[in-house]
């Protein structure tokens, strides 16, 4: 048995014996504890190390891809095994002691952080889609990146594997330090992969931008970690979530005495929130994510759509109890999320670069997730994370396939009718599935997950939460519009295309040399368009296979909603025992207000959360959160479907083929124009502003970069003139003296003797004067 083999590994020790903590979800025995889950992060790490070896050895085959795929698949299998063998009780698996410091016996005078894993449903859920998607996307990338075999291929898969390792640490870690390690690790890998085409100035700039913007968020997270340790005296989840201090704060908030919670404890969620906003690209720190599309498309799909950017969601879900201690932490998250969702959707509507549209869509959907979490619908939020991971990865990979095949062409005005082109059917179908998910077409996964959030937005009482609901609903319509705008423009209509200026079939590729050999996979070189007419090369087995798999998964994800419907789906059943679980538990009042919250942690005694389970049975509080007088939970299915349909219909009218009769294959006069152009004109300059991303980058430039630029130039001038001047002066004075005395250095003996004599005379005279 694999388990037995793993059990015999001496390095794996368990925290089971650590009974001193007394409380907390600790594992009882080795057999019950899947110690081999340690291999989940270590396998990708091993792959990363092996890929470094490949790079050193100068491997010129697809070996790194094979290594990565195999190790990631193994990690996925192990994760699935862990899930299957999971008993529902939170476990801690300790690899080895990482930090174990103590400077006193009192509380808060020791710091302990193991390389250990906190295994509960939340982390397992995350790891399942992280490792699964990573395996699929690695397979996709093995074909997508093949033009770089022997060059950047090793580097790419090294960073890819390292990213999965970091993400595993982030998700699985049983303490804040592990989380921080993973947090920084994914940031680093993100930087490395965005800047993969380091010869392209835009890619380098985007990588720097992502890294620097993330630094702001990471600083917030770091301060949050510090404050947590200072205030609660521990970094370990088990200890933190079972601490009476935290429970006391939550009780105080529940009792309406939020003022009793110390300010420092209230500040912790704020700083954690900043970290989450940075990593998950929320307003105002979202600006890095669209630019991050400069990286290879698989990276965009995995890191910047499916996994890494959900780290912020994970952070808030994991620290849900901590967020509850502050009255206004969650409302802020809700508002930021809703606003980001709306803002990004408006920008996404006006973009022409399909990858960029998907990027803004990601930002927008992340806003949904945050709003969902903050609106006390953690199930909805996390479900949306899951479904979004699949369909957004699918969308990105489809975009990547288009980009790969059309020489880096991403402008939807210059592509048309892919559906009708031979070899592009899988891509088109995958795109369609992704689009209907994203647009919220009924009975798709995206439809269900979005509905849960929307319904909760109208149900939950909070500062301005009703407005949030309307905002999110509007956003849903806009999402449907811009999603199908892409689809109608690119995949429907007459076959017409204009290849990109990337001579390699993808703007990702930046090779000044060896062009004819590097992309031999399609049989001809695009080195010179003038001589050889361009032929798009449709994707082959690996890409198509992955797209098909993802399409199936994206469709099947909808089925999760119907698993254990009493918990609002499979995700709800997963979350109910985790830190992200919440119930509306209030005997006196059935208002789903924040004061009525009750937390259930993994080992809480409120196992009998009947109220939580029958959340769907919401008749008791229907009167308090309503949607135009209806029960949101019931009516939202129809409302969102209608909104989505409106969006799709508008897109079809504006961008679809001319005349509904001609169907999908009907002709459109020009790929570059549409009815929308006329509509947009009626809005005046607003579409232009949206296309320019509301000038946020310019605003940041004006607000931060310009003053910093001026300041740094002032400092530069000071440094140059004052500091350097002083140093130069110090150097110049002796030199000037030297210059002055240089004529005396005649080489003639007499001159030296003369100056010596004169000098003695002068000294004597001076002595006489001084001595009187």
């Amino acid at each position, binding site marked *: 048995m694999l388990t037995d083999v793993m059990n015999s590994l001496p390095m794996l020790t368990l925290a089971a014996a650590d009974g001193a903590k007394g409380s907390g979800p600790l594992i009882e025995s080795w057999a019950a504890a899947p110690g081999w889950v340690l291999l989940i992060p270590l396998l990708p790490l091993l792959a990363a190390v092996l890929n470094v070896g490949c790079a050193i050895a100068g491997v010129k085959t697809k070996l790194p891809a094979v290594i990565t795929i195999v190790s990631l698949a193994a990690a996925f299998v192990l994760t699935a095994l862990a899930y299957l063998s999971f008993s529902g009780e939170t476990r801690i698996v300790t690899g080895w002691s990482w930090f174990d410091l103590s400077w006193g016996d009192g509380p808060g005078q020791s710091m302990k952080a193991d390389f250990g894993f906190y295994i509960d449903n939340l982390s397992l859920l995350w790891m399942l889609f992280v490792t699964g998607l990573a395996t699929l996307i690695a397979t996709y990338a093995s074909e997508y990146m093949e033009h770089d075999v022997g060059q950047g291929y090793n580097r790419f898969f090294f960073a890819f594997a390292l990213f999965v390792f970091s993400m595993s640490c982030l998700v699985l870690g049983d303490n804040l330090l592990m989380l921080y390690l993973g947090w920084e690790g994914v940031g680093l890998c993100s930087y490395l992969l965005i800047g993969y085409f380091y010869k392209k100035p835009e890619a380098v700039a985007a990588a720097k931008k992502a890294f620097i913007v993330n630094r702001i968020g990471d600083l917030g997270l770091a301060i949050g970690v510090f404050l947590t340790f200072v205030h609660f005296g521990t970094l370990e989840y088990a200890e933190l979530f079972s601490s009476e201090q935290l429970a006391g704060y939550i009780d105080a908030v529940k009792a309406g005495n939020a003022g009793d919670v110390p300010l420092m404890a209230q500040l912790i969620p704020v700083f954690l929130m900043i970290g989450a906003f940075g990593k998950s690209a929320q307003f105002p720190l979202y600006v890095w994510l669209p630019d991050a599309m400069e990286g290879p498309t698989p990276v965009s799909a995995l890191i910047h759509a499916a996994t890494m950017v959900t780290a912020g969601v994970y952070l808030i879900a994991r620290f849900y109890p901590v967020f509850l201690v502050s009255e206004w932490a969650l409302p802020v998250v809700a508002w930021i999320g809703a606003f980001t969702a709306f803002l990004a959707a408006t920008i996404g509507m006006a973009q022409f670069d399909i990858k960029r549209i998907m990027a803004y869509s990601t930002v927008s959907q992340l806003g949904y997730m945050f709003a969902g979490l903050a609106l006390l619908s953690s199930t909805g939020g996390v479900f949306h994370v899951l479904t979004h991971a699949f369909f957004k990865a699918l969308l990105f990979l489809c975009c990547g396939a288009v980009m790969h095949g059309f020489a880096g062409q991403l402008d939807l005005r210059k592509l048309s009718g892919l559906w009708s082109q031979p070899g592009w059917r899988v891509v088109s179908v995958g795109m369609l599935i992704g689009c209907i998910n994203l647009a919220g077409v009924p009975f798709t996964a995206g439809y269900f997950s979005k509905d849960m959030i929307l319904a909760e937005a109208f149900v939950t009482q909070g500062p301005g939460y009703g407005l949030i609901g309307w905002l999110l609903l509007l956003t849903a319509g806009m999402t449907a519009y811009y999603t199908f705008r892409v689809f109608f423009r690119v995949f429907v209509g007459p076959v017409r295309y204009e290849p990109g200026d990337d001579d390699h079939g993808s703007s990702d590729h930046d090779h000044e040399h060896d062009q004819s050999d590097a992309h031999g996979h399609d049989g001809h070189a695009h080195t010179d368009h003038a001589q050889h007419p361009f032929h798009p090369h449709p994707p082959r087995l690996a890409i198509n296979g992955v797209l098909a798999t993802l399409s199936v998964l994206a469709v099947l994800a909808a089925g999760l909603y119907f698993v254990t419907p009493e918990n609002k789906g499979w995700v709800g059943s997963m979350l109910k025992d985790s830190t992200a679980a919440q119930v509306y538990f209030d005997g006196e009042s059935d208002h789903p207000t924040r004061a009525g919250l009750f937390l259930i942690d993994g080992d809480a005694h409120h196992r009998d959360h009947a109220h939580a389970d029958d959340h769907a049975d919401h008749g008791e509080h229907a009167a308090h959160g309503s949607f135009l007088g209806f029960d949101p939970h019931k009516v939202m299915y129809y409302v969102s479907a209608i909104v989505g349909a409106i969006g799709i219909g508008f897109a079809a009218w504006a961008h679809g083929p001319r005349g509904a009769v001609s169907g999908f294959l009907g002709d459109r006069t020009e790929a570059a124009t549409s009815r929308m152009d006329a509509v947009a004109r009626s809005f005046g300059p607003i579409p232009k502003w949206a296309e320019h991303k509301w000038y946020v980058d310019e605003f940041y430039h004006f607000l931060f970069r310009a003053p910093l630029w001026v300041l740094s130039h002032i400092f530069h001038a000071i440094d140059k003139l004052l500091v350097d001047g002083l140093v130069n002066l110090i150097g110049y004075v002796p030199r000037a003296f030297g210059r002055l005395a240089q004529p005396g*250095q*005649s*080489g*003639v*003996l*007499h001159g030296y*003797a*003369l100056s010596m*004599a004169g000098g003695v005379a002068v000294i004597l005279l001076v002595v006489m004067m001084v001595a009187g």
Partner: protein
Amino acid sequence: MPDLVVSTLAQADFPEVMHAITLYHYLLVSAVMFCLGLIGFVTRRNLIIMFLCTELMFQAAGIALIAFGRFYLDYTGQVFVIFVLTVAAAEAALALALVVLLFRRKESLDGTAWAVLKG
């Protein structure tokens, strides 16, 4: 006053005839001779005369040393002059050897001709 017996270094006769000569007399002579040697060193271009002028300065120093020794009634000044003499002899031997070498190189004793040695 006949009982004014003076402690001298050796000669009982000398003090009586030099009572009007002070240390200043000797030091002034020494200073003049030193400055003459210095001027000679600076102005003359013949290497040999330049070295002669250094010997002149040595003489001046010797006079000063011995006068001070006499003033303080001890022999240290004279002992110092012995060492000055030693160094002067060594210097003369080496310097003159160098002068001969230089002369053979350029057929000239002009001290200014060697200004290139400044590097």
